[in-house]
């Protein structure tokens, strides 16, 4: 009672606001929840099972596998599942305090390389699966994780280069970073998909997915570089001087002393870049790839399930939201924890 009075009805202006909001919520939420849950169709397998006028979740359930795997052949989907487990496993090494960050990073990169070969089936006895068949959430994750993995080493070099004392290196790195940060991702993707072949020898073709990955990683690399640079700037001069006094050269100083500290500082920033990139991968649908959003959009034109755009978009929204929100919580958690450490 006391709480309600203080927080909702403390003055007449406040009361009015409260009432207005409540009315608005009632007006918007009730029909929404009704459509989403109460009168929605959950069971069945055919279009005719959706007759109640609520959301038709039957369609999502029917297409769920495709939303996850795209056109990846059904009998080979175990590869995707396996690699997802391997990737998650190696990522979780970061949370295990007995494994050093360096080892965990190495494991993640190793699992990515294994993952690529397993999924494509190249250089192994598995039947090859062309990347154009990849799609859905799997493609979204490949683009995000792969793009980041390719971008990460570049980003570190760029960040170091931007702080370099050699003018040419510094100018080059600064220009490179600012160029990619100054243009929209969509033009980068256009560039990668249309212009990249120009730099290759005749007849050699780069896989379309690989091209998108290169585009994504150039873009992500520039943003990551700035995040890492922030971490480098936070390292006190004394650390450099101490390392120099111990006779470590530039690269050793960076590798053993500066980078480990700098990267730990910017973990929240890195995670935020991951979230941004995860959302930005949706842009590949404009260059004709079927990522999670792309495949949902494509399925909206399916004869059987026409007119279910709202369900498709709402489902996509919920999934993206759930993933991004948990990642951002994680980032905030780490930030708080490291702040308490510092104090």
């Amino acid at each position, binding site marked *: 009672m006391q709480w309600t009075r203080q927080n909702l009805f403390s003055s007449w202006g406040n009361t009015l606001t409260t009432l207005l909001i409540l009315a608005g919520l009632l007006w918007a939420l009730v029909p929404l929840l009704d459509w989403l849950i109460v009168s929605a169709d959950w069971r069945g397998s055919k279009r005719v099972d959706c007759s109640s006028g609520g959301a038709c979740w039957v369609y999502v359930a029917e297409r769920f596998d495709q939303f996850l795997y795209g*056109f990846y052949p059904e009998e080979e989907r175990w590869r995707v599942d396996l690699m997802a487990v391997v990737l998650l496993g190696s990522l979780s090494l970061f949370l295990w305090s007995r494994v050093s960050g360096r080892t965990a990073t190495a494991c993640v990169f190793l699992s990515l390389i294994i993952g690529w070969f397993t999924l494509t089936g190249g250089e192994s006895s598995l039947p090859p699966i*062309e990347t154009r068949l990849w799609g859905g959430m799997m493609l979204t994750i490949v683009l995000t994780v792969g793009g980041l993995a390719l971008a990460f080493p570049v980003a570190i070099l760029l960040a170091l280069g931007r702080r370099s004392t050699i003018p040419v290196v510094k100018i080059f790195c600064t220009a490179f970073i600012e160029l990619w940060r100054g243009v929209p991702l969509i033009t980068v993707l256009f560039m990668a998909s249309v212009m990249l072949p120009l730099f290759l*020898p*005749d*007849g050699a*073709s780069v896989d379309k997915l690989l091209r998108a990955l290169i585009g994504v990683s150039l873009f992500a690399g520039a943003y990551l570089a700035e995040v890492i640079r922030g971490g480098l700037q936070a390292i006190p001069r004394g650390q450099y001087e101490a390392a120099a006094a111990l006779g470590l050269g530039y690269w050793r100083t960076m590798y053993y002393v500066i980078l480990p500290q700098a990267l730990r500082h910017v973990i929240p920033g890195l995670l935020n870049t991951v979230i941004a990139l995860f959302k930005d991968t949706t842009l590949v649908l404009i*260059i*004709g790839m079927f990522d999670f959003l792309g495949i949902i959009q494509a399925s909206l*034109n399916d004869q059987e399930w*026409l007119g279910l755009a709202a369900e498709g978009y709402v489902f996509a929204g919920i999934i993206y939201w759930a993933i991004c929100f948990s990642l951002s919580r994680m980032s905030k958690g780490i930030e708080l924890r490291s702040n308490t450490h510092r104090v």
Partner: protein
Amino acid sequence: MQILRNLMPLVVIVLASAGTNAGTLDTVKSKGAITCGVSQGLPGFSAPDGKGNWIGIDADFCRAVAAVVLGSPDKVKFRPLSTKEAFTALQFGEIHILSRNVTWTQTRDSALGVNFAGILYYDGQGFMVRRSLSVKSARELNGAAVCVNSGSTTELNLSDYFRTHKMKYSPVVFEKSDEVLAAYRAGRCDVFSTDQSGLYAQRLKLAKANEHMILPEIISKEPLGPAVRQGDDQWFNIVRWTLFALVGAEELGITKANIGSLSKNTGNPEIRRFVGTEGKAGINLGLDPKWAARAVTAVGNYGELFEKHLGKNSRLKISRGLNRLWNKGGLHYAPPIR
């Protein structure tokens, strides 16, 4: 700097090798497969089925070339391309044939570094409208909002047509055809305009297809056909003659079903030359005498292809119209094989 200096020779090699043209035929033979650029999904021309196999007349044309060159229609890798990527992919040798519903125009032939090998389908841009608008002719479309796909001649033809007839229109241009359809379906436009074949295909994707009608006017010439890269005449000839072989076979009455028996026992010299029991047309192409026969065995003659994918045996039910043979009132005419 050191890195750059080390990279320089590599760049030089890359660029130097970019200038040389290895024969496409040799490349294809050594790779054992043809890479074929197709559309990203246009029923009747090239569209993936539930298992990811590419179905359609464009796709089958590539299979025919594969049968001619490599002996098997299965030795094709399909690469779905957007219009934007299509020509660059061909220019830079990522694909060996572009067999996608692209229009043969003078600019494309001369400025884009590609050569069209012939015409597989005589198409023309048309209009689809809702029946409820009670429009009978495209001449009544003054002031209409028109949904079109970016990246083909569609936009240009559209504006030419409206300019010629002194009508106004408002273009709503999307990057992908799925989005064009979605917008038309949502009522954003009065008119959906694209190649007529495409209209028939897209109409299938509408909830109630018979509520929409395709107007009689064809406002453009859209000769669709396979294209190859400029500068490799041998490969160009192979692709072009594969197309002629398919059309020629129909004229000669050679079908997928009867080619087996015909190649053994026929006295018709034209057919004998076609199936390779007489003459050496194939040798000149850098192939063997049985080349044309393999094309027909693999996919059938042009008429069979048409009816299977576009005509009465398909869901599209497009009438042959201009795509009949020359001696039946159409435009398809194959030079003689001799």
